[in-house]
């Protein structure tokens, strides 16, 4: 199974000559190439030598670079107490910069596994947000529990500091 997976991934490398710079997720590639490789084996032409034929698993240890204020890697912050529960984040550092924050734990007060009916097609509108300058009597916004978020993130970034 594992060797089959690697085989399929190398097929993807060949397909990148079609302009697909970002490989498809491995799961869906498996299904797509499972049939296409049998029908059309000549698509295996690697034209971009810099694309590894056996991609490194995403969980491999990151290379430490010193070109930013942080060392590359993933850093898990402390568990911080927000009013509605605990908040814990993981900071992802790449190229010395914070590129992503993942929530490992956050307050939940409901079951999120249930489907939602879609019998009526909603009529929704979209636009880009823009700042409004008119005076207001009051403001509606999410509760201020970000101190817990800040606490956890700060602890993660302290570990990442070069």
């Amino acid at each position, binding site marked *: 199974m594992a060797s089959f997976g690697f085989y399929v991934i190398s097929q993807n490398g060949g397909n990148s000559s079609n302009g697909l710079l970002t490989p498809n997720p491995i799961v869906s590639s498996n299904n797509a190439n499972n049939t296409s490789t049998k029908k059309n084996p000549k698509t295996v032409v690697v034209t971009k030598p810099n694309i590894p034929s056996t991609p490194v698993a995403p969980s491999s240890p990151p290379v430490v670079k010193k070109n930013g204020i942080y060392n590359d890697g993933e850093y898990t912050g402390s568990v911080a107490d927000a009013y509605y529960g605990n908040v814990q984040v993981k900071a992802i550092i790449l190229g010395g910069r914070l590129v992503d924050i993942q929530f490992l734990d956050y307050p939940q007060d409901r079951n999120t596994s249930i489907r939602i009916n879609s019998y009526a097609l909603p009529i929704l509108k979209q636009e880009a947000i823009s700042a409004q300058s008119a005076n207001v009597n009051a403001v*509606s916004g999410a509760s201020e529990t970000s101190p817990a978020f800040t606490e956890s993130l700060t602890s993660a970034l302290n570990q990442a500091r070069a």
Partner: protein
Amino acid sequence: MKENRTIMGMPVNIEIIDSNATEEVFEEVFNYLISIDERFSIYKKTSEITLFNEGKILEKDFSNDMKEIFRLSLQTKNDTDGFFDIIYSGKIDPSGLVKGWAIYKAAEILRKKGIKNFYVEIAGDIEIAGFNSEGKKWAIGIRNPFNKKENVKIVYLSDKGIATSGTYERGEHIYNPKEKKVANEVLSLTVIGPNVYEADRFATACFAMGRKGIEFVERLSDFEGYMIDHEGITTFTSGFEKYLK
């Protein structure tokens, strides 16, 4: 008159336009909210909710308020396809419902005194009644989740409730490995409803639905919604714009 306190660890703001608003009226409302916190805080050792979670009292011993919160929680769970549930990690935590309910009950205290023009706000959830000091609809800003000093929309409301659920409090993060970034993330969902209790419970539950949440709001009559995603794009319901003036 306008006054503010910190109760339940959250800012509470009340403005009353009617001339019969006295210091005692404000005190009564603030004290009521403190009593609700004493009863429902999961962080207080002596609260009714903590005593129940520790098995020290039984359901038959519940106060009327507690019975009402349980009944409303069950109703909300049914109304939101199970997206709202106060049973979490084997314990009861009604925080997601109590805030909106408490604001609504506080507003009821004012209404029973004949006060008609006011708002009661706790941490961004607001019950709005009558008109402001200029005799116009209350102007309510919807906060920019990217910059909390800014508003991205201003709605004009009278006899409505408005509530916002946001990401750092109850976040939804779906990691997209293809684009190496957080995908489909809803930063905030604001719901306007017939009162703040209704607005708050649907804001909480629909925020948990992710991008489907705004579609759920669209299907509710008497409710409008305004969602902001992580790219700064808003999606709003078909009737939302009627509140822009």
